[in-house]
């Protein structure tokens, strides 16, 4: 298989018995993902979608050998769910939940960095390996197996890009949504490095947007370390100017990337940058 997911991936769903958890567990199962359990405190012992429910992640890990978790809990419980997964030794944590308070995410970031777990997200659509496995919420119908890696901050925008690539018969090796929040567990650079070293990936599409420095750091990494071709789209060239938070925001945000700065940095790193996602297939050829 390709990056992040492999034959050993055994997935639990935190928040499986909520409506979203039920719906998406079924969709992931239908796609062939190995879902071995679900977590809902107080519902241990029940079965949902033919999958056993446990009260805690630790129990699920010891009973099922789970090594991956996907999180669908409400935002107020999401930090707790991530800590629990880390403490239970889950290797890969995919947090779909969005709306986490930024303070929670700063603490989570420090905690996950001090552990051996990897966190994807929060506020992300997850990981899709076309034809093989889906850990998250990406619509699978427009995906096509192939050799182009996709990494994106977006949700629906990611699906548009996958759809556009598939329409042009450009299949995907792995699609990773790293999440749109200002603080995320895994960066573009982490994923680009995995794609660069992945024998099943020949080229990469990077989908970015305004805010933060992540695309600039990605451009620096591409320039220094990537041999595989990269095409990109950056959303937000005409975005209304951000609601700058007083003077402190201006001091902190100084130099923080506009879409144009990011496009320039990517160009300078040899990346072909589209002005409309429709152009991406041509830029990969």
């Amino acid at each position, binding site marked *: 298989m390709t990056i992040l997911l492999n034959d050993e991936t055994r997935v639990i769903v935190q928040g499986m018995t909520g409506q*979203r958890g039920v719906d*998406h567990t079924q969709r992931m199962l239908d796609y062939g993902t190995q879902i071995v359990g679900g977590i809902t405190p107080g519902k241990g012992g029940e079965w949902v979608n033919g999958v056993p429910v446990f009260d805690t992640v630790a129990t699920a890990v010891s009973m099922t050998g789970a090594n991956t978790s996907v999180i669908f809990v409400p*935002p*107020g419980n999401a930090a707790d769910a991530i800590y629990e997964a880390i403490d239970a030794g889950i290797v890969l944590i995919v947090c*779909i939940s*969005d*709306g*986490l*308070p*930024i*303070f929670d995410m*700063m*603490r989570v*970031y*420090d*905690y996950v960095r001090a552990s051996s777990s990897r966190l994807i997200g929060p506020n992300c*659509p997850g990981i899709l390996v076309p034809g093989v496995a889906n850990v998250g*919420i*990406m*619509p699978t*119908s*427009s995906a096509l197996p192939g050799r182009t890696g996709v990494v*994106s*901050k*977006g*949700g*629906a*925008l*990611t*699906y*548009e890009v996958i*759809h556009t690539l598939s329409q042009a018969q450009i299949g995907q090796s792995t699609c990773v949504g790293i999440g*749109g929040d*200002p*603080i995320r567990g895994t960066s573009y650079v982490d994923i680009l490095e995995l794609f660069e070293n992945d024998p099943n990936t020949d080229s990469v599409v990077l*989908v970015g*947007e*305004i805010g*933060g*420095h992540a695309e600039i750091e990605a451009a620096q990494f591409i320039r220094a370390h990537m041999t595989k071709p990269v095409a990109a*789209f950056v*959303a*937000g*060239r*005409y*975005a*209304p100017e951000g609601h700058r*938070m*007083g*003077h*402190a*925001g201006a*001091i*902190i945000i100084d130099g*923080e990337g506009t*879409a144009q700065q990011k496009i320039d940095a990517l160009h300078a790193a040899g990346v072909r940058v589209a*002005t*409309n*996602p*429709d152009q991406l297939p041509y830029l990969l050829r």
Partner: protein
Amino acid sequence: MRLHEYEAKLRLAEFGIPVPEGRIAAQVESAVQAATDLTGPVMVKAQVMSRDRSAQRGIRRAETPGAVRFHARELFEHPIDGVKASRVLVERVVDIQRGLYIAITHDRSARKPVLIVMDEDGFNQTDDEEATVLREHIAPLIGLRSYQITTIASQLNLPREYWPQFNRLALNLYRCFETSDASLIELHPLGVTHDAAMVVVHAHMVIDDNALFRQPKLAALRATAYRSESERIAFEAGLTYIKLEGQIGCITNGAGLAMTIIDLIHGFGDNHIGPANFLDVSGGARFDKWMAAFYAIHADPNVRCALVNVFGGMTPCDDVAEALVLAHEQAILPHTVIVRLKGNRAEQGLALLRSARLPGVVLADSLTGAVQLAVHAAKGNEA
């Protein structure tokens, strides 16, 4: 969510941070009464969100209650940046010998809160390079420590007799920041008075919208902060809405896709045609959120046509279609609505729309096609 100055000062006072003695007044006569109670010269400050408040004479000094009557009347009558103050803050004047700029905010690239301190004089310099900005990053799992405050106090050349109260104040400020789920607290300035006290002259506070669910006291203040009916509808439904100047009401899921559509409209439009709003209906929105989105667009008088582009992951597209049908029944749709549905339950949604045959609803097949149709419709529907 931004707080008004008086709301921020009340919050700071709860955390033991010294603010000037003051009263909030919603009428001219209660402002006069407040000044009489406070005795001596007072400041009368319009409670509006404008950052331009002091340049637009929203802050007045009044020596007597009679002068307060004059200034309060003006502040209630004259809009600042288009907004009339519904309240004024009447405060005892604070004479300061030195002003410090102090802020705590999130440094998103460092992924930590940061304490920023500088001298007011440095702040007012036009050339940022010359101002000495002192920064201490704060480990979120540990919090602000006293040694960090000492470091700043000594770099500021703050006389040592002030160190204990500066230390207390900074620790309380961080406690207020953390407990309130603030994304910014700014003291601008923190005044050092002639009798060796420290007091907040002006404060600015922003709360993390994502944390309002666990800050009911602060969330309750939100009602005073809407700029338009569209914004109110969107906020109450939990949607992100930003008003723009154009005519195409954009309804989509996900911030990235919403921004892409705005970019494409600018690309295909001309100077006359543009997006009317940024509206992100994300997070697996169901029927009621889509209805709220249609109502928010309806409340914007500039909208000539709507562009609904949804690529459902968590979001079921048939909910969007059902909301469209009901919005049509309630007559809140603009003349033309361009609709493109893809992904989760898109076939069901499209089938519903085909059988409903709503007048003015045009189905598009691609993102680019949908944007081109919307731009065309906005031109055609020109009044």
